[in-house]
């Protein structure tokens, strides 16, 4: 898909340029792919801390007496399980069981929620929400242009945010809070996209630069680095997180993506429930499956995966894993029940490179408790 609109810049664009960020176009946004080195930035997050500009992400506020009923209808996860101060990862299914977007829903009050959506899908999601809010007492506000967002990720994240937002230290994993920063209403969630402990600051655009600079100044003494989209991608793939548009779309379901745990059938009706219930009961014909190279090489998106000499699917996300020092990737394979350890091959530059099926996540941080 091509777009003719001019690329958009976040409030931190000039900060990135001054820090030597290498700017690329990411779904219509000019963002740094790296500052110094993807490997160094990746290592900073796994070992200490990294700061990410994720201002391209969108924010939709859902308020009203039917806010929960509305969110239950459009989400696969059970939003009633989070009360004020908690957040949850969820998928927005369509009628076919495909996924409109993957989101994080924070409960701010029992009639007020914040949904953080992907950049490329923000407008699509908002239209989808409006369509499904008809007849409900719910107000929807797309505040994506008003808020910027900074992610602080890594085992030292809590120490980095301590001075700017000491109250955030009390947040549990997937906790959410509303607070004033520089006199302006802001939000912090203890969430992230790296597989490490971390916080995401959602703040009005006029203070994003101050928040970023404060966090970076505090972080530098603890070994924190500014990080780009390159490290964000290697970190999230190691941690087994999905990238919407690559691993997940309107045609692939939550169950096929191997995220069946997100689907809570016992919560009552919701869009796509019938298809997802059937897939949970009868299984799926294709499944997003982890592959790890046993030889040197860097797998890329689009590479064919062979199982028993036959192409079982193609990788949709793949990279060199800095932590494992090996090539890793995920792809929808038409062999949904392959056991970890099954031998496979990935075709790279016309050559079959030996690989094996592995469990996802590829990497679990020793700093983060399992299942957190």
């Amino acid at each position, binding site marked *: 898909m091509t777009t003719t609109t001019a690329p958009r810049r976040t409030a931190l664009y000039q900060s990135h340029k001054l820090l030597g960020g290498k700017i690329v176009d990411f779904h219509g946004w000019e963002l740094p*792919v*790296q500052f110094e*080195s*993807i*490997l160094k930035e990746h290592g900073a997050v796994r070992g200490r801390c990294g700061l990410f500009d994720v201002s391209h992400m969108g924010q939709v506020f859902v308020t009203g007496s039917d806010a929960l009923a509305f969110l239950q209808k459009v989400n696969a996860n059970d939003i009633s399980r989070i009360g004020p101060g908690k957040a949850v990862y969820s998928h927005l299914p369509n009628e076919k069981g495909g996924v409109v977007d993957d989101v994080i829903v924070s409960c701010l009050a029992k009639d007020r929620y914040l949904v953080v959506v992907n950049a490329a899908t923000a407008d699509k999601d908002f239209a989808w929400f409006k369509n499904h809010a008809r007849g409900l007492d719910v107000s929807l506000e797309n505040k994506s242009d008003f808020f910027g967002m900074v992610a602080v990720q890594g085992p030292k994240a809590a120490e980095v945010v301590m001075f700017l937002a000491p109250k955030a230290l009390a947040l549990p994993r997937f906790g959410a809070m509303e607070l004033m920063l520089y006199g302006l209403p802001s939000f912090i969630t203890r969430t992230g996209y790296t597989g490490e402990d971390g916080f995401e600051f959602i703040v009005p655009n006029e203070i994003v630069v101050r928040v970023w600079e404060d966090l970076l100044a505090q972080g530098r003494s603890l070994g924190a680095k500014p990080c780009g989209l*390159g490290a964000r991608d*290697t970190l999230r793939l190691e941690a087994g997180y999905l990238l919407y548009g690559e691993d997940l779309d309107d045609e692939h379901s939550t169950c096929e993506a191997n995220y069946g745990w997100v689907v809570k059938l016992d919560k009552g009706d919701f869009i796509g429930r019938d298809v997802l219930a059937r897939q949970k009961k009868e299984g799926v014909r294709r499944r997003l499956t982890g592959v790890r190279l046993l030889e*040197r*090489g*860097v797998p*890329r998106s689009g590479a064919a995966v062979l199982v028993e000499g036959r192409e079982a699917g193609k990788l949709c996300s793949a*990279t*060199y894993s*800095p932590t494992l020092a090996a090539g890793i990737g995920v792809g929808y394979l038409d062999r949904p029940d392959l056991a970890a350890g099954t031998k496979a091959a990935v075709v790279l*530059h016309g050559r079959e490179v030996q690989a094996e099926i592995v469990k996802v996540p590829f990497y679990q941080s020793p700093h983060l408790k399992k299942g957190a």
Partner: protein
Amino acid sequence: MFDPKSLRFMKSHEWLRLEGDAGTVGISDHAQKEITDVVFVEPPKVGRVVKQGEACCVVESVKAAFDIYAPVSGEIVAANADVVKDPALVNGGPYDKGWLFKIKASSPAEASKLMDHAAYEQFLLAEAAHGSH
């Protein structure tokens, strides 16, 4: 380490050191900085015969794969096993331990088509001025 001033360069950023018909090939310091974090090198097979400008080696970063072109025609006579084991050598010493392969040039005069160091520096400046990336 080779003195960069003694090398010839391609527009695709390979360098060639030629002594008689014995050539050594690598990528320039500019190229390694642009690629950053080399994580994989697949050198050409020894014995392969290549033409000038033919893709014969792959250097990969975390984000992308880069074809490396033969600066002159000839036969590949050695591949650097050290950069296969430790691809970061390409970043650490592009004119030194990070060389990629050696080639026996079949017509060494082809090297005259390549840029000398001063011309390559001018080429880089012109590229930067055009804002190409």
